Protein backbone atom coordinates (compact mmCIF):
# COMPACT_ATOMS: atom_id res chain seq x y z
CA UNK A 1 0.00 0.00 0.00
CA UNK A 2 2.29 2.69 -1.20
CA UNK A 3 0.84 5.66 -3.00
CA UNK A 4 -2.88 5.10 -3.09
CA UNK A 5 -4.59 5.96 -6.30
CA UNK A 6 -8.10 7.19 -6.13
CA UNK A 7 -9.55 3.97 -7.45
CA UNK A 8 -7.63 1.75 -5.09
CA UNK A 9 -8.75 3.72 -2.14
CA UNK A 10 -12.34 3.43 -3.10
CA UNK A 11 -12.17 -0.29 -3.52
CA UNK A 12 -10.12 -1.00 -0.49
CA UNK A 13 -11.97 1.23 1.87
CA UNK A 14 -15.05 -0.53 0.70
CA UNK A 15 -13.58 -3.93 1.32
CA UNK A 16 -11.79 -3.16 4.52
CA UNK A 17 -14.79 -2.20 6.50
CA UNK A 18 -13.55 0.14 9.14
CA UNK A 19 -16.18 2.67 8.41
CA UNK A 20 -18.07 2.58 11.61
CA UNK A 21 -20.57 5.19 10.62
CA UNK A 22 -21.95 2.91 7.96
CA UNK A 23 -22.25 0.01 10.30
CA UNK A 24 -23.91 2.18 12.91
CA UNK A 25 -26.48 3.16 10.38
CA UNK A 26 -27.03 -0.46 9.65
CA UNK A 27 -27.67 -1.00 13.29
CA UNK A 28 -30.26 1.71 13.64
CA UNK A 29 -31.97 0.50 10.54
CA UNK A 30 -32.32 -2.95 11.90
CA UNK A 31 -33.41 -1.62 15.23
CA UNK A 32 -36.30 0.05 13.52
CA UNK A 33 -37.21 -3.01 11.58
CA UNK A 34 -37.07 -5.43 14.40
CA UNK A 35 -38.18 -3.03 17.08
CA UNK A 36 -35.62 -4.65 19.34
CA UNK A 37 -33.07 -3.15 21.64
CA UNK A 38 -29.93 -4.03 19.75
CA UNK A 39 -27.09 -3.26 22.10
CA UNK A 40 -23.85 -4.99 22.91
CA UNK A 41 -24.86 -5.40 26.50
CA UNK A 42 -27.92 -7.26 25.34
CA UNK A 43 -26.62 -9.61 22.74
CA UNK A 44 -29.50 -11.97 23.32
CA UNK A 45 -31.90 -9.41 22.04
CA UNK A 46 -30.52 -9.18 18.53
CA UNK A 47 -32.89 -9.04 15.66
CA UNK A 48 -32.00 -12.51 14.57
CA UNK A 49 -30.33 -14.55 17.26
CA UNK A 50 -28.91 -16.87 14.67
CA UNK A 51 -26.58 -14.06 13.62
CA UNK A 52 -24.49 -14.48 16.72
CA UNK A 53 -21.31 -16.31 16.05
CA UNK A 54 -18.36 -17.23 18.18
CA UNK A 55 -15.08 -17.53 16.39
CA UNK A 56 -11.63 -18.24 17.59
CA UNK A 57 -8.62 -16.15 16.63
CA UNK A 58 -5.19 -17.44 17.41
CA UNK A 59 -3.10 -18.59 19.17
CA UNK A 60 -1.33 -19.34 15.90
CA UNK A 61 -2.26 -16.25 14.00
CA UNK A 62 0.32 -13.90 12.52
CA UNK A 63 -1.64 -10.81 13.49
CA UNK A 64 -1.76 -11.62 17.18
CA UNK A 65 1.97 -10.97 17.60
CA UNK A 66 2.75 -14.26 19.19
CA UNK A 67 0.46 -16.62 20.97
CA UNK A 68 -2.53 -14.54 21.91
CA UNK A 69 -5.86 -16.27 21.53
CA UNK A 70 -8.96 -14.13 21.31
CA UNK A 71 -12.46 -15.56 21.32
CA UNK A 72 -14.70 -13.20 19.41
CA UNK A 73 -18.44 -13.02 19.79
CA UNK A 74 -19.82 -11.64 16.59
CA UNK A 75 -23.07 -10.41 15.21
CA UNK A 76 -22.40 -10.67 11.51
CA UNK A 77 -19.15 -8.77 11.21
CA UNK A 78 -19.63 -6.73 14.32
CA UNK A 79 -17.80 -7.59 17.51
CA UNK A 80 -20.08 -7.96 20.51
CA UNK A 81 -17.44 -9.02 22.96
CA UNK A 82 -14.06 -10.65 23.31
CA UNK A 83 -12.30 -12.92 25.66
CA UNK A 84 -8.54 -13.18 25.71
CA UNK A 85 -7.00 -16.53 26.47
CA UNK A 86 -3.40 -16.04 27.48
CA UNK A 87 -0.68 -18.00 29.19
CA UNK A 88 0.68 -19.97 26.26
CA UNK A 89 4.10 -18.49 26.89
CA UNK A 90 3.99 -18.69 30.67
CA UNK A 91 7.39 -19.65 32.02
CA UNK A 92 6.93 -18.78 35.66
CA UNK A 93 9.43 -15.95 35.73
CA UNK A 94 8.36 -14.91 39.22
CA UNK A 95 8.87 -18.42 40.55
CA UNK A 96 12.26 -18.63 38.89
CA UNK A 97 13.24 -15.38 40.58
CA UNK A 98 12.61 -16.89 44.00
CA UNK A 99 15.06 -19.66 43.20
CA UNK A 100 17.89 -17.55 41.78
CA UNK A 101 20.15 -15.00 43.35
CA UNK A 102 19.62 -11.37 42.47
CA UNK A 103 22.52 -11.46 40.05
CA UNK A 104 21.53 -14.74 38.45
CA UNK A 105 18.02 -13.52 37.79
CA UNK A 106 19.18 -10.47 35.86
CA UNK A 107 19.29 -12.10 32.39
CA UNK A 108 15.85 -13.60 32.81
CA UNK A 109 14.14 -10.22 32.72
CA UNK A 110 15.34 -9.74 29.14
CA UNK A 111 13.08 -12.60 28.10
CA UNK A 112 9.92 -10.88 29.14
CA UNK A 113 9.57 -7.97 26.74
CA UNK A 114 12.11 -9.36 24.33
CA UNK A 115 11.88 -6.48 21.89
CA UNK A 116 12.83 -4.03 24.64
CA UNK A 117 15.21 -6.08 26.73
CA UNK A 118 17.28 -3.10 27.78
CA UNK A 119 14.27 -1.45 29.44
CA UNK A 120 13.52 -4.60 31.40
CA UNK A 121 17.09 -4.74 32.61
CA UNK A 122 17.06 -1.10 33.61
CA UNK A 123 13.91 -1.55 35.66
CA UNK A 124 15.22 -4.62 37.41
CA UNK A 125 18.66 -3.20 38.19
CA UNK A 126 17.21 0.04 39.50
CA UNK A 127 14.73 -1.82 41.67
CA UNK A 128 17.45 -3.93 43.27
CA UNK A 129 19.66 -0.88 43.68
CA UNK A 130 16.83 0.84 45.45
CA UNK A 131 16.45 -2.16 47.72
CA UNK A 132 20.19 -2.05 48.40
CA UNK A 133 20.00 1.71 48.89
CA UNK A 134 22.77 2.39 46.41
CA UNK A 135 22.72 4.42 43.26
CA UNK A 136 24.44 3.87 39.94
CA UNK A 137 27.29 6.21 39.08
CA UNK A 138 26.54 9.24 36.89
CA UNK A 139 28.41 7.78 33.94
CA UNK A 140 26.52 4.50 34.21
CA UNK A 141 23.27 6.40 34.33
CA UNK A 142 24.03 8.20 31.10
CA UNK A 143 25.01 5.01 29.34
CA UNK A 144 21.80 3.46 30.60
CA UNK A 145 19.72 6.33 29.28
CA UNK A 146 21.35 6.18 25.85
CA UNK A 147 20.87 2.45 25.47
CA UNK A 148 17.35 2.49 26.86
CA UNK A 149 16.25 5.23 24.53
CA UNK A 150 17.85 3.48 21.58
CA UNK A 151 15.86 0.46 22.61
CA UNK A 152 12.69 2.52 22.79
CA UNK A 153 13.22 3.56 19.19
CA UNK A 154 13.91 -0.04 18.17
CA UNK A 155 10.78 -1.21 19.95
CA UNK A 156 8.63 1.46 18.32
CA UNK A 157 10.13 0.67 14.93
CA UNK A 158 9.26 -2.98 15.32
CA UNK A 159 5.79 -2.02 16.44
CA UNK A 160 5.31 0.27 13.46
CA UNK A 161 6.45 -2.29 10.93
CA UNK A 162 4.29 -5.11 12.24
CA UNK A 163 1.30 -2.91 12.97
CA UNK A 164 1.32 -1.51 9.44
CA UNK A 165 1.75 -5.00 8.07
CA UNK A 166 -1.30 -6.16 9.99
CA UNK A 167 -3.35 -3.42 8.43
CA UNK A 168 -2.05 -4.24 4.98
CA UNK A 169 0.89 -1.94 4.40
CA UNK A 170 3.90 -4.00 3.49
CA UNK A 171 6.53 -1.36 2.86
CA UNK A 172 6.99 0.12 6.35
CA UNK A 173 8.05 -3.27 7.64
CA UNK A 174 11.11 -3.32 5.41
CA UNK A 175 11.99 0.26 6.17
CA UNK A 176 11.73 -0.10 9.93
CA UNK A 177 13.59 -3.39 10.10
CA UNK A 178 16.35 -1.99 7.94
CA UNK A 179 16.82 0.95 10.31
CA UNK A 180 16.35 -1.03 13.49
CA UNK A 181 19.34 -3.08 12.42
CA UNK A 182 21.59 -0.08 13.07
CA UNK A 183 20.47 0.01 16.70
CA UNK A 184 21.03 -3.70 17.10
CA UNK A 185 24.53 -3.29 15.72
CA UNK A 186 25.28 -0.76 18.44
CA UNK A 187 23.95 -3.17 21.06
CA UNK A 188 26.00 -6.00 19.63
CA UNK A 189 29.15 -3.96 19.68
CA UNK A 190 28.45 -2.78 23.21
CA UNK A 191 27.58 -6.04 24.91
CA UNK A 192 27.75 -8.82 22.35
CA UNK A 193 24.03 -9.46 22.09
CA UNK A 194 21.48 -7.97 19.80
CA UNK A 195 18.16 -8.69 21.45
CA UNK A 196 18.45 -10.19 24.90
CA UNK A 197 21.20 -7.80 25.80
CA UNK A 198 21.69 -8.13 29.55
CA UNK A 199 23.31 -4.73 29.21
CA UNK A 200 23.23 -3.57 32.82
CA UNK A 201 24.39 -4.89 36.14
CA UNK A 202 23.17 -4.16 39.61
CA UNK A 203 25.06 -1.01 40.50
CA UNK A 204 25.86 0.21 37.00
CA UNK A 205 27.08 -1.31 33.77
CA UNK A 206 29.48 -4.14 33.28
CA UNK A 207 31.02 -2.79 30.11
CA UNK A 208 32.70 0.49 29.40
CA UNK A 209 31.60 1.97 26.10
CA UNK A 210 33.67 0.74 23.16
CA UNK A 211 35.96 3.05 21.22
CA UNK A 212 33.88 5.11 18.84
CA UNK A 213 30.62 4.46 20.69
CA UNK A 214 29.71 8.11 20.92
CA UNK A 215 30.50 8.71 17.29
CA UNK A 216 28.42 5.78 16.19
CA UNK A 217 25.47 6.86 18.27
CA UNK A 218 25.70 10.36 16.82
CA UNK A 219 25.90 8.94 13.33
CA UNK A 220 22.84 6.91 14.08
CA UNK A 221 20.96 10.00 15.17
CA UNK A 222 21.65 11.80 11.92
CA UNK A 223 20.87 8.63 10.03
CA UNK A 224 17.54 7.85 11.61
CA UNK A 225 15.93 11.28 11.92
CA UNK A 226 15.12 11.54 8.20
CA UNK A 227 14.04 7.90 8.23
CA UNK A 228 11.30 8.66 10.72
CA UNK A 229 10.07 11.36 8.35
CA UNK A 230 10.16 8.74 5.66
CA UNK A 231 7.88 6.43 7.62
CA UNK A 232 5.52 9.31 8.07
CA UNK A 233 5.39 10.07 4.35
CA UNK A 234 4.24 6.50 3.85
CA UNK A 235 1.49 6.57 6.41
CA UNK A 236 0.51 9.80 8.11
CA UNK A 237 -1.60 11.23 5.31
CA UNK A 238 -2.19 7.99 3.51
CA UNK A 239 -5.90 7.72 2.99
CA UNK A 240 -6.13 3.97 3.50
CA UNK A 241 -4.13 4.21 6.68
CA UNK A 242 -6.33 6.97 8.00
CA UNK A 243 -9.53 5.13 7.18
CA UNK A 244 -8.28 2.03 8.89
CA UNK A 245 -7.06 3.79 12.02
CA UNK A 246 -9.08 6.94 12.67
CA UNK A 247 -11.89 6.39 15.18
CA UNK A 248 -10.89 2.77 15.50
CA UNK A 249 -10.32 1.39 18.95
CA UNK A 250 -11.16 4.57 20.82
CA UNK A 251 -10.55 4.60 24.56
CA UNK A 252 -11.35 7.62 26.68
CA UNK A 253 -8.93 8.98 29.25
CA UNK A 254 -11.26 8.00 32.09
CA UNK A 255 -11.55 4.44 30.85
CA UNK A 256 -7.83 4.21 30.28
CA UNK A 257 -7.06 5.30 33.84
CA UNK A 258 -9.69 3.01 35.31
CA UNK A 259 -8.26 0.09 33.39
CA UNK A 260 -4.71 0.91 34.46
CA UNK A 261 -3.58 1.48 30.89
CA UNK A 262 -0.20 3.19 30.63
CA UNK A 263 2.36 4.20 28.05
CA UNK A 264 1.56 5.54 24.60
CA UNK A 265 -1.98 4.17 24.80
CA UNK A 266 -2.73 6.35 27.81
CA UNK A 267 -1.00 9.38 26.34
CA UNK A 268 -2.91 9.08 23.08
CA UNK A 269 -6.08 9.49 25.13
CA UNK A 270 -4.83 12.86 26.27
CA UNK A 271 -3.27 12.08 29.65
CA UNK A 272 0.08 13.78 29.80
CA UNK A 273 1.84 11.31 32.01
CA UNK A 274 5.22 9.76 31.57
CA UNK A 275 7.18 8.25 34.43
CA UNK A 276 10.37 9.73 33.04
CA UNK A 277 8.91 13.13 33.91
CA UNK A 278 6.50 12.31 36.73
CA UNK A 279 8.97 10.37 38.85
CA UNK A 280 12.32 10.65 37.11
CA UNK A 281 14.74 7.76 37.43
CA UNK A 282 18.20 7.15 36.02
CA UNK A 283 19.35 10.52 34.65
CA UNK A 284 16.12 11.58 32.98
CA UNK A 285 15.66 14.64 35.16
CA UNK A 286 18.70 16.17 33.47
CA UNK A 287 17.34 16.09 29.95
CA UNK A 288 14.96 18.30 28.15
CA UNK A 289 12.17 16.54 26.30
CA UNK A 290 8.45 16.67 25.81
CA UNK A 291 5.64 14.22 26.36
CA UNK A 292 3.65 13.83 23.17
CA UNK A 293 -0.07 13.39 23.75
CA UNK A 294 -3.02 12.67 21.52
CA UNK A 295 -6.59 13.87 21.74
CA UNK A 296 -8.95 11.23 20.40
CA UNK A 297 -7.50 8.10 21.91
CA UNK A 298 -7.89 6.21 18.65
CA UNK A 299 -5.48 4.05 16.72
CA UNK A 300 -4.33 6.95 14.59
CA UNK A 301 -3.45 9.06 17.62
CA UNK A 302 -1.50 6.23 19.15
CA UNK A 303 0.43 6.02 15.92
CA UNK A 304 1.19 9.74 16.02
CA UNK A 305 2.19 9.59 19.68
CA UNK A 306 4.68 6.81 19.09
CA UNK A 307 6.14 8.57 16.08
CA UNK A 308 6.60 11.70 18.17
CA UNK A 309 8.11 9.64 20.96
CA UNK A 310 10.80 8.36 18.66
CA UNK A 311 11.80 11.93 17.89
CA UNK A 312 11.83 12.79 21.60
CA UNK A 313 14.05 9.80 22.22
CA UNK A 314 16.46 11.15 19.64
CA UNK A 315 16.53 14.43 21.54
CA UNK A 316 17.31 12.66 24.79
CA UNK A 317 20.05 10.56 23.24
CA UNK A 318 21.60 13.59 21.64
CA UNK A 319 21.78 15.46 24.94
CA UNK A 320 23.07 12.42 26.77
CA UNK A 321 25.73 11.43 24.29
CA UNK A 322 27.11 14.96 24.20
CA UNK A 323 27.60 15.12 27.93
CA UNK A 324 28.51 11.65 29.20
CA UNK A 325 30.38 12.33 32.43
CA UNK A 326 33.69 10.65 33.12
CA UNK A 327 34.09 8.31 36.03
CA UNK A 328 33.52 4.74 37.08
CA UNK A 329 30.69 2.74 35.59
CA UNK A 330 30.04 0.62 38.65
CA UNK A 331 28.99 1.86 42.04
CA UNK A 332 30.38 0.10 45.08
CA UNK A 333 28.09 -2.84 45.52
CA UNK A 334 29.00 -5.94 47.46
CA UNK A 335 30.08 -8.96 45.45
CA UNK A 336 27.27 -10.93 46.98
CA UNK A 337 24.03 -9.01 46.67
CA UNK A 338 22.22 -9.37 49.96
CA UNK A 339 19.67 -6.62 50.40
CA UNK A 340 18.33 -5.91 53.89
CA UNK A 341 14.89 -7.13 54.86
CA UNK A 342 12.24 -4.99 53.25
CA UNK A 343 9.89 -4.42 50.37
CA UNK A 344 10.30 -2.09 47.47
CA UNK A 345 8.36 -1.14 44.37
CA UNK A 346 10.14 0.56 41.53
CA UNK A 347 8.85 1.24 38.06
CA UNK A 348 10.09 2.75 34.85
CA UNK A 349 8.52 3.93 31.63
CA UNK A 350 9.17 1.10 29.25
CA UNK A 351 8.21 1.48 25.57
CA UNK A 352 4.92 -0.25 26.41
CA UNK A 353 4.03 1.56 29.61
CA UNK A 354 4.72 1.32 33.31
CA UNK A 355 7.02 -1.60 33.98
CA UNK A 356 7.27 -2.20 37.71
CA UNK A 357 9.13 -4.55 40.01
CA UNK A 358 7.88 -5.30 43.49
CA UNK A 359 10.59 -7.09 45.42
CA UNK A 360 10.38 -8.54 48.90
CA UNK A 361 13.70 -9.29 50.49
CA UNK A 362 14.14 -11.54 53.49
CA UNK A 363 17.77 -10.60 53.85
CA UNK A 364 19.08 -13.55 51.88
CA UNK A 365 20.76 -13.66 48.50
CA UNK A 366 17.55 -14.60 46.72
CA UNK A 367 14.41 -12.51 46.41
CA UNK A 368 11.71 -13.80 48.73
CA UNK A 369 9.15 -12.63 46.23
CA UNK A 370 9.57 -10.78 42.99
CA UNK A 371 6.54 -9.48 41.20
CA UNK A 372 6.70 -7.96 37.75
CA UNK A 373 4.05 -5.44 36.88
CA UNK A 374 3.86 -5.97 33.13
CA UNK A 375 2.50 -3.09 31.03
CA UNK A 376 1.45 -5.36 28.14
CA UNK A 377 -0.64 -7.58 30.39
CA UNK A 378 -2.55 -4.69 31.89
CA UNK A 379 -2.96 -2.85 28.58
CA UNK A 380 -4.27 -5.97 26.89
CA UNK A 381 -7.17 -5.96 29.28
CA UNK A 382 -8.44 -2.84 27.54
CA UNK A 383 -8.78 -4.71 24.25
CA UNK A 384 -12.32 -5.72 25.07
CA UNK A 385 -13.78 -2.25 25.43
CA UNK A 386 -11.69 -0.95 22.55
CA UNK A 387 -13.05 -3.41 19.99
CA UNK A 388 -16.68 -3.64 21.03
CA UNK A 389 -18.84 -2.45 18.20
CA UNK A 390 -16.05 -2.56 15.66
CA UNK A 391 -15.72 -4.99 12.79
CA UNK A 392 -13.61 -8.11 12.78
CA UNK A 393 -10.97 -6.57 10.54
CA UNK A 394 -10.44 -3.83 13.12
CA UNK A 395 -9.61 -6.26 15.89
CA UNK A 396 -6.31 -6.89 14.15
CA UNK A 397 -5.63 -3.16 14.02
CA UNK A 398 -6.42 -2.74 17.71
CA UNK A 399 -4.28 -5.66 18.85
CA UNK A 400 -1.44 -4.09 16.91
CA UNK A 401 -1.98 -0.64 18.32
CA UNK A 402 -1.88 -1.75 21.96
CA UNK A 403 1.62 -3.00 21.23
CA UNK A 404 1.73 -6.17 23.27
CA UNK A 405 4.56 -8.61 23.56
CA UNK A 406 3.32 -11.98 24.66
CA UNK A 407 6.52 -12.81 26.44
CA UNK A 408 5.65 -10.05 28.85
CA UNK A 409 1.92 -10.75 29.02
CA UNK A 410 2.50 -14.37 30.02
CA UNK A 411 5.86 -14.13 31.74
Amino acid at each position, binding site marked *: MSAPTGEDTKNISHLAPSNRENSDQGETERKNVGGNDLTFENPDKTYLDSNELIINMGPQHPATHGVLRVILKLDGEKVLGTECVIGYLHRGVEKIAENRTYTMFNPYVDRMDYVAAVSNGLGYCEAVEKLLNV*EATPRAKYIRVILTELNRIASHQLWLGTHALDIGAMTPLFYTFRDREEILKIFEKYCGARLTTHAFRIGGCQYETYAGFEKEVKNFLTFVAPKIDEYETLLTTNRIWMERTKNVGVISAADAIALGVTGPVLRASGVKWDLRKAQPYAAYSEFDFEIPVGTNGDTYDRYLVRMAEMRQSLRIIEQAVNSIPEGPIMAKVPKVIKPPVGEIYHSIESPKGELGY*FIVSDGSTQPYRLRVRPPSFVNLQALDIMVRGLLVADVVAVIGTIDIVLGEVDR
Partner: protein
Amino acid sequence: MAEDAKTPAPPPPPEGEKKPSAEMPAAPVSNAPVKPVAPAPPAKPAVPADSTTPPKPAAPAKPTGPVPLLWSSPLVEKYRSQYGTALEGQTYLGQNYLTVKSELIPNILRLLRDEEQFDYCVDITAVHYPKREKQFDVVWILYSFPRNERLRVTTQIADGASIPSSVSIWPTANWLEREVYDMFGIQFDGHPDLKRILLPDGWKGFPLRKDYGILQQDKEWVQINLGIESGQ
Protein backbone atom coordinates in the same frame (compact mmCIF):
# COMPACT_ATOMS: atom_id res chain seq x y z
CA MET B 1 40.74 6.77 48.99
CA ALA B 2 39.29 3.59 50.29
CA GLU B 3 36.83 5.45 52.44
CA ASP B 4 35.95 7.75 49.61
CA ALA B 5 35.16 4.90 47.35
CA LYS B 6 33.10 3.32 50.04
CA THR B 7 30.48 5.99 49.71
CA PRO B 8 28.56 4.18 47.04
CA ALA B 9 26.98 7.08 45.26
CA PRO B 10 26.96 10.78 46.06
CA PRO B 11 23.56 11.24 47.67
CA PRO B 12 21.51 8.37 48.97
CA PRO B 13 18.36 8.57 46.89
CA PRO B 14 15.34 8.08 49.09
CA GLU B 15 14.24 10.80 51.42
CA GLY B 16 13.26 8.35 54.12
CA GLU B 17 16.87 7.45 54.73
CA LYS B 18 18.38 10.83 54.14
CA LYS B 19 17.11 12.37 57.32
CA PRO B 20 18.57 10.10 59.94
CA SER B 21 21.98 10.00 58.30
CA ALA B 22 22.09 13.75 57.90
CA GLU B 23 21.32 14.30 61.55
CA MET B 24 23.89 11.87 62.69
CA PRO B 25 27.04 13.99 62.59
CA ALA B 26 25.38 16.76 64.60
CA ALA B 27 24.46 14.45 67.42
CA PRO B 28 27.65 12.97 68.81
CA VAL B 29 25.78 10.15 70.44
CA SER B 30 24.95 8.30 67.33
CA ASN B 31 22.08 6.43 68.92
CA ALA B 32 19.49 8.76 67.53
CA PRO B 33 17.55 6.95 64.84
CA VAL B 34 13.95 7.89 64.89
CA LYS B 35 12.74 4.45 65.71
CA PRO B 36 14.61 2.14 68.03
CA VAL B 37 14.02 -0.99 66.02
CA ALA B 38 17.48 -1.33 64.52
CA PRO B 39 20.52 -2.13 66.60
CA ALA B 40 21.76 1.25 65.41
CA PRO B 41 24.98 1.72 63.48
CA PRO B 42 27.64 0.97 66.03
CA ALA B 43 30.99 0.99 64.29
CA LYS B 44 30.29 3.91 62.08
CA PRO B 45 31.31 7.13 63.86
CA ALA B 46 34.96 6.07 64.01
CA VAL B 47 35.59 6.44 60.31
CA PRO B 48 33.63 9.50 59.27
CA ALA B 49 34.56 11.53 62.35
CA ASP B 50 37.60 13.01 60.63
CA SER B 51 36.48 13.23 57.05
CA THR B 52 32.89 14.22 57.66
CA THR B 53 31.59 16.90 55.39
CA PRO B 54 28.61 17.26 53.13
CA PRO B 55 28.22 13.90 51.43
CA LYS B 56 28.23 11.89 54.64
CA PRO B 57 28.49 8.16 54.37
CA ALA B 58 25.41 6.41 53.20
CA ALA B 59 26.50 3.80 55.72
CA PRO B 60 26.75 0.83 53.35
CA ALA B 61 23.40 -0.50 54.24
CA LYS B 62 24.60 -4.05 54.51
CA PRO B 63 24.67 -5.07 58.14
CA THR B 64 21.71 -3.35 59.73
CA GLY B 65 20.00 -1.71 56.86
CA PRO B 66 17.36 0.95 56.85
CA VAL B 67 14.28 0.30 58.90
CA PRO B 68 10.65 1.10 58.28
CA LEU B 69 9.74 4.35 59.94
CA LEU B 70 6.40 5.58 61.08
CA TRP B 71 4.80 7.59 58.37
CA SER B 72 2.91 10.57 59.63
CA SER B 73 0.83 12.45 57.15
CA PRO B 74 -2.64 13.97 57.07
CA LEU B 75 -3.84 10.91 55.21
CA VAL B 76 -2.73 8.53 57.94
CA GLU B 77 -4.02 10.80 60.69
CA LYS B 78 -7.39 11.02 59.06
CA TYR B 79 -7.88 7.29 58.68
CA ARG B 80 -6.35 6.49 62.04
CA SER B 81 -8.90 8.69 63.74
CA GLN B 82 -11.55 6.84 61.82
CA TYR B 83 -10.31 3.29 62.18
CA GLY B 84 -7.87 3.43 65.07
CA THR B 85 -5.23 0.78 65.23
CA ALA B 86 -6.74 -1.27 62.43
CA LEU B 87 -4.53 0.80 60.20
CA GLU B 88 -0.90 1.79 60.36
CA GLY B 89 1.18 3.95 58.08
CA GLN B 90 4.87 3.29 57.54
CA THR B 91 7.56 4.39 55.20
CA TYR B 92 10.57 2.45 53.99
CA LEU B 93 13.27 3.92 51.77
CA GLY B 94 10.96 6.78 50.95
CA GLN B 95 8.07 4.55 49.93
CA ASN B 96 4.87 4.80 51.92
CA TYR B 97 2.60 1.96 52.76
CA LEU B 98 -0.45 1.29 54.86
CA THR B 99 -0.88 -1.91 56.78
CA VAL B 100 -4.55 -2.50 57.35
CA LYS B 101 -6.71 -5.21 58.86
CA SER B 102 -8.46 -7.28 56.25
CA GLU B 103 -11.92 -6.26 57.51
CA LEU B 104 -11.30 -2.75 56.23
CA ILE B 105 -10.45 -3.85 52.78
CA PRO B 106 -13.08 -2.80 50.38
CA ASN B 107 -13.86 0.38 52.31
CA ILE B 108 -10.39 1.77 52.73
CA LEU B 109 -9.59 1.20 49.06
CA ARG B 110 -12.75 2.94 48.00
CA LEU B 111 -12.01 5.86 50.32
CA LEU B 112 -8.49 6.13 49.00
CA ARG B 113 -9.84 6.40 45.50
CA ASP B 114 -12.73 8.75 46.25
CA GLU B 115 -11.25 10.98 48.93
CA GLU B 116 -7.53 10.79 48.34
CA GLN B 117 -7.56 10.60 44.54
CA PHE B 118 -5.69 7.33 44.20
CA ASP B 119 -7.31 6.80 40.85
CA TYR B 120 -4.89 4.34 39.32
CA CYS B 121 -4.46 0.82 40.65
CA VAL B 122 -1.01 -0.11 39.48
CA ASP B 123 -0.87 -3.66 40.65
CA ILE B 124 -2.36 -6.25 42.96
CA THR B 125 -0.21 -9.06 44.17
CA ALA B 126 0.41 -11.34 47.11
CA VAL B 127 3.24 -12.78 49.13
CA HIS B 128 3.14 -16.16 50.82
CA TYR B 129 4.55 -16.65 54.34
CA PRO B 130 3.77 -20.29 55.11
CA LYS B 131 4.97 -20.12 58.72
CA ARG B 132 2.67 -17.31 59.70
CA GLU B 133 -0.79 -17.88 61.03
CA LYS B 134 -2.23 -15.56 58.43
CA GLN B 135 -0.29 -16.90 55.54
CA PHE B 136 -0.79 -14.30 52.85
CA ASP B 137 0.04 -10.67 52.38
CA VAL B 138 -2.17 -9.11 49.75
CA VAL B 139 -0.67 -5.93 48.34
CA TRP B 140 -2.33 -3.17 46.36
CA ILE B 141 0.02 -0.73 44.70
CA LEU B 142 -1.79 2.53 44.05
CA TYR B 143 -0.88 5.72 42.32
CA SER B 144 -2.56 9.09 42.23
CA PHE B 145 -2.29 11.13 39.05
CA PRO B 146 -3.28 14.43 40.69
CA ARG B 147 -0.87 13.99 43.61
CA ASN B 148 1.89 12.16 41.72
CA GLU B 149 2.21 9.86 44.68
CA ARG B 150 2.46 6.16 45.22
CA LEU B 151 1.00 4.19 48.08
CA ARG B 152 0.94 0.53 48.93
CA VAL B 153 -1.82 -1.05 50.95
CA THR B 154 -1.03 -4.36 52.59
CA THR B 155 -3.25 -6.72 54.48
CA GLN B 156 -2.87 -10.20 55.87
CA ILE B 157 -5.30 -13.03 55.30
CA ALA B 158 -5.32 -16.66 56.28
CA ASP B 159 -5.14 -19.56 53.87
CA GLY B 160 -8.61 -20.37 52.66
CA ALA B 161 -10.01 -17.01 53.68
CA SER B 162 -11.39 -14.78 51.00
CA ILE B 163 -11.14 -11.08 50.48
CA PRO B 164 -13.55 -8.65 48.79
CA SER B 165 -12.79 -7.93 45.19
CA SER B 166 -11.91 -4.39 44.11
CA VAL B 167 -13.09 -4.75 40.54
CA SER B 168 -15.92 -2.34 41.26
CA ILE B 169 -13.38 0.24 42.42
CA TRP B 170 -10.81 -0.16 39.66
CA PRO B 171 -11.82 -2.28 36.65
CA THR B 172 -8.16 -3.08 36.09
CA ALA B 173 -8.33 -5.30 39.17
CA ASN B 174 -10.13 -7.90 37.09
CA TRP B 175 -7.11 -9.56 35.51
CA LEU B 176 -4.80 -8.70 38.38
CA GLU B 177 -7.01 -10.51 40.87
CA ARG B 178 -7.37 -13.42 38.50
CA GLU B 179 -3.61 -13.72 38.41
CA VAL B 180 -3.37 -13.63 42.19
CA TYR B 181 -6.00 -16.35 42.34
CA ASP B 182 -4.17 -18.33 39.69
CA MET B 183 -0.83 -18.18 41.45
CA PHE B 184 -1.82 -18.22 45.12
CA GLY B 185 -5.37 -19.54 45.29
CA ILE B 186 -6.69 -16.48 47.07
CA GLN B 187 -10.42 -16.04 46.59
CA PHE B 188 -11.80 -12.61 45.76
CA ASP B 189 -15.45 -12.26 46.71
CA GLY B 190 -17.59 -10.51 44.17
CA HIS B 191 -15.16 -10.89 41.30
CA PRO B 192 -17.19 -11.18 38.08
CA ASP B 193 -15.20 -14.03 36.56
CA LEU B 194 -12.67 -15.50 38.94
CA LYS B 195 -10.83 -18.23 37.05
CA ARG B 196 -7.28 -19.03 36.10
CA ILE B 197 -5.65 -16.69 33.66
CA LEU B 198 -2.11 -17.83 32.91
CA LEU B 199 -2.32 -21.51 33.75
CA PRO B 200 -4.78 -23.89 32.08
CA ASP B 201 -8.22 -24.10 33.65
CA GLY B 202 -7.85 -27.67 34.86
CA TRP B 203 -4.47 -27.19 36.54
CA LYS B 204 -4.12 -28.28 40.14
CA GLY B 205 -2.01 -26.35 42.60
CA PHE B 206 -0.92 -22.76 43.01
CA PRO B 207 2.65 -22.30 41.84
CA LEU B 208 3.72 -19.19 43.71
CA ARG B 209 2.99 -20.69 47.10
CA LYS B 210 6.18 -21.48 48.92
CA ASP B 211 5.32 -25.15 49.31
CA TYR B 212 5.08 -25.57 45.53
CA GLY B 213 8.49 -26.68 44.32
CA ILE B 214 10.15 -25.13 41.33
CA LEU B 215 10.16 -28.43 39.44
CA GLN B 216 6.68 -29.39 40.53
CA GLN B 217 3.98 -29.69 37.91
CA ASP B 218 0.48 -31.01 37.61
CA LYS B 219 1.65 -34.32 36.15
CA GLU B 220 -1.84 -35.60 35.56
CA TRP B 221 -2.73 -32.56 33.50
CA VAL B 222 0.47 -32.79 31.50
CA GLN B 223 -0.05 -36.47 30.75
CA ILE B 224 -3.66 -36.12 29.71
CA ASN B 225 -3.39 -32.93 27.73
CA LEU B 226 0.08 -33.04 26.27
CA GLY B 227 0.41 -36.79 25.90
CA ILE B 228 3.89 -36.85 27.41
CA GLU B 229 5.18 -38.44 30.57
CA SER B 230 6.53 -35.28 32.17
CA GLY B 231 7.01 -31.69 31.26
CA GLN B 232 10.47 -31.57 32.75
